[in-house]
């Protein structure tokens, strides 16, 4: 399959990138690793007239620590994240999420920025133009129906990124810049929850950094992914957990971030006083009741929505338990 034609720029500075983005608003797309964008272009799902490569902008690469925060350039590859002792030692959830993403050769070129803004997915959507004409266009391709849900009135495409749930669990923020603006945004605000346009990111804007606070004592994070094969596959469901303990190893704060359950990651705060959800009383039934309402899943991935719903609490439970086990025992006394 061939790519469509486009103008190509590879500026050396962030200023040039942002200038181009402003000039070509709506028609340009930045090119990071290309592992999400290029297949979409081959399928005719994204047809930017201009690609702006970020490969030469050194400012967008690298991992550094400043003021108790870790700053990750968006062009940092997943392989670099995986090999980074800073990430491994401080952010287990992120390390686990990276390890679970795709497969090694894809991690060698995929970037954290690109991974965060990957398009939402659906079996009926991710096909090439010539075969999508078998059916009328769906909401996500500019039509008026959903093929996954007959009589559906909205898009049910699924955000399948592995890193976002982990980064949200870690309290991640984004630095977003355009030619005339710079802002720091909590990561959850990136997601619109609308499958048609999944990100609150203006056409002239670029993620220029991922900022994660160093974790405090007595807290830990984890990421659990459920997929059919041990490689390559996107999650069917996933869960990141962020746990903070108080003395006596009771849970002070417990948050779950559910992935691959809808057009955006879903944040679920667990009431630490709930008897069913104390560290010694965690059980699936309680989680089922809590999570079931938060994540309506349909049959648009490899396994039916009903199955994914059943598995969700199991994955969430595993994430919570994994995070709990990661908290150093002596520190919580």
């Amino acid at each position, binding site marked *: 399959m061939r790519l469509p034609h486009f103008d190509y720029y590879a500026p050396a500075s962030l200023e040039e990138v942002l200038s181009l983005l402003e000039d070509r608003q709506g028609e340009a797309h930045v090119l990071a690793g290309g592992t999400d964008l290029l297949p979409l272009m081959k399928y005719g799902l994204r047809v930017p007239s201009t690609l702006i490569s970020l490969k030469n902008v050194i400012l967008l690469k690298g991992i550094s620590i400043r003021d108790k925060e870790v700053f990750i350039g968006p062009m940092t590859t997943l392989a670099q994240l995986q090999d980074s002792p800073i990430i491994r030692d401080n952010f287990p959830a992120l390390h686990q999420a990276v390890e679970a993403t795709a497969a090694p050769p894809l991690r060698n070129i995929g970037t954290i920025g690109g991974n965060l803004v990957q398009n939402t997915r659906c079996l*009926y959507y991710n*096909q090439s133009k010539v075969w999508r*004409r*078998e059916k009328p266009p769906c909401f996500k391709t500019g039509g008026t129906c959903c093929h996954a849900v007959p009589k559906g009135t909205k898009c049910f495409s699924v955000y399948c990124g592995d890193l976002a749930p982990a980064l949200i669990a870690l309290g991640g923020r984004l630095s977003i810049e355009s030619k005339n603006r710079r802002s720091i945004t909590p990561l959850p605000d990136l997601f619109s929850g609308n499958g048609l346009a999944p990100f609150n990111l203006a056409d002239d804007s670029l993620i220029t950094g991922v900022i994660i606070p160093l974790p405090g004592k007595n807290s830990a994070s984890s990421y659990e992914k459920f997929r059919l094969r041990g*490689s*390559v596959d996107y999650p069917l469901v996933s869960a990141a957990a962020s746990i903070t303990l108080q003395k006596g190893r009771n849970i002070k704060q417990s948050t779950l971030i559910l992935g691959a359950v809808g057009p955006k990651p879903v944040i679920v705060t667990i009431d630490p006083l709930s008897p069913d959800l104390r560290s010694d009383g965690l059980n699936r039934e309680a989680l089922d009741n809590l999570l079931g309402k938060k994540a309506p899943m349909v049959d648009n991935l490899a396994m039916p929505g009903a*199955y994914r719903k059943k*598995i969700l609490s*199991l994955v969430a439970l595993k994430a919570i338990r994994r995070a709990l086990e990661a908290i150093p025992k002596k520190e919580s006394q």
Partner: protein
Amino acid sequence: MDDLLYIGKSIPRKDGPIKATGRAQYTVDISLPGMLVGKVLRSPYPHARILHIDTSLAEKLPGVKAVVTAADSLQIKHGFVETPRYPADQYPMAVDTVRHVGEDIAGVAAVDEDTAEEALNLIRVEYEPLPAVFDPEEAMKPEAPEIHPNHPKVKDTYRNIGGKTETGWGDLEKALKESYLIREDKYYCQMRTHGYLEPQATVAHFDFSGKLNVWTSGMGVFLKRAKLAKTLGLPYSNVRVLKTYVGGAFGGKIDLFHHEYISALLSMKSHQPVKIVYSREEVFKASRHAQPLIVQIKTGVAKDGTILGQEIRTINDSGAYHGSGVVVIFLAWGFAMAPYRIPAMKYAGYSVYTNNLVRAPQRGHGAPKMRFAIESQFDMIAETLGIDPLEFRLRNAREPGELLPNGDSVKNFGLRDCLLKSAERTAFRDKYQAARTGRECDNKIKRGIGIGTTSYFGGSLIYPNSSTVIVRLNDDGSASLVTGALDIGQGCETVLSQIVAEELGIPIEEVQIYAADTETTPVDIGSWISGLTYVTGNAAKKAASQAMKKLLLVAAEELQADVKDLRTHRKEIFVTQAPNRRITYAQAIAASIAKNKGDSIIGEGHFRTMKDEPTHPSLATAKGRWSENYSNYATVAEVEVDTETGMIKILKATTAHDCGFPLNPNLVEGQIDGQVSMGQGHILSEELRVEEGCVINPSFLEYKMPSAMEMVETDYVDVITEKYEKDRHYNTKEVGEGYVSGTVAAVANAVYNATGLRLTRTPFSPDRVLEGLEQMGKKEKEEHG
């Protein structure tokens, strides 16, 4: 066989280095001067009348060199089989009706991809959609839309019957009356696909001498030539199909594929070479995949587990044309009757038209589905009777020399040994009992063990029916092996070289193989029908043996000795009792040329199976002998079932196999490993999901073939039942297809052993497993209050 130099040895493959260095040329790699890019326009509808096709705008587009539709063709039909009962039924390009999504309507050839793509978009087709049907049982109902008229010989009231096989023996009614236990079950087997990594691809060049030259990713050059010649109206002499390396096939590249025809027609029109390569999505959406099969089995047994009778009905979802469907319903019977004794049987197989893609055989061609169904049922019967599954199978396994209902002899049938050895190797009985006990424990991960067997034919008669091999001795005693055989990855070039090197007593490095060119190599049976090692191998043996005899005759004359007193060693021939009387191969060959009217010593060998049978058995009645060789496999699978997620992991697959004897053990092991992996995909994760005739998971991302993370530990046990002999043809049995079935069946039984869950629908995807376990749990609660 210890005195053999090459046979029975794990000789590294001859084409290993060329493949390891990326120098092997596959069809997708071929580039010819002036070559055009070809593309195919396909139907978006599952069933529609073509009212009008307008290619004028496409033809005018600069850079377009040819556009073809059925109007440019001879409109000659072809079929996977073409017999009086099942005549050819499909046009290479749709004439007035399309019957499946993706059916070929037109072809374009242009100077580059972009232009070809644009040209396709400029072709205007006017369709009148027609009602369509996608489920075979629905298609059989009287009110179903008619895709084709019923086969004239089929008298049932069912609709859309493209083919039927009906056969039986013994008195089934009596057998069932006398049965202590009768079990009836119905199984649904999914549509799976081959997953070859090299997509469908063809380069066709109709040159100015009036000859069509074709390079295509296929499984045998002679069948391709025949089909192309017929549909294009060319004499065989003017169609040359040449060798390319093949990036996997597994049954999915046997007969005429329409892009082969279209690229040829485009080349005939443009007089330039035309290359068509499918995208991966196109392979999934429009190429041929394995047929879904519904298997209904009723088995009656005596109290001790002896099978008394069996009634089997298969329904094949044939897709829009015959395809291989009319063969699979015949083969299904074959896969049911071979391993175990069945004194009475009634079999009916229906191949039902639906508005789905046309089917192709896939490794095993129905055996994995049949054995899954039969072996699952046998385990259930054994359990009800309180007999262990191994004992049940041993009780009913055919013995060496038994005659099958169609007259074939099973000859040296190693099934019993396969069963015993696989069980012994894996401590089957102990683990089986341990798992039964383990079901009750609280552990969420359950382990289980299961056994599955199959018996598989090889080398049966299907065009071109036979193989010829020529062995030419070169001046220095090295040899050229000339064969029409196409190595599709199984290693046949290596095996044939081993045979020739063995017979001639020369180093294998001095056997150069020239293969798979319809113009310069003799006819070959092809790399399907699991017969190449047996048929072409024996032809190669004969050819080399004949060359050797000629050489020895010349040497005998030169050395003034009797042939029987001669021995060879390192390309020299000497008198056994007087070794100083010796002559080199080179000298003998020179003498032959000098004294035998220029005879440079060429040996030719021909071989086919079933020499007493004029043709293959009746596809309608299964009457007629079919195969000289029946392989046997018993696979024991050990699995882990995660009862919380429904995920199944195959820990180990141990296969005891009777392939006669392995000519190259390493290659045989490779076949076992690959088939365990394919069986794994079949039973656990692979399914082409189709809605309204459209494949909705057309990518390697969504069609779940096993990755290296799912690799199964494999073990093998040899059961040797034949041997290589110098002076007669050898009997080997196939190794290319049968192993898939054993894995599929064994895993199904292992899952039951672990959890008590019986599924009758494949694959055992985790949602089905979880649902099944939940239903089981509910039922147990209800029963126990």
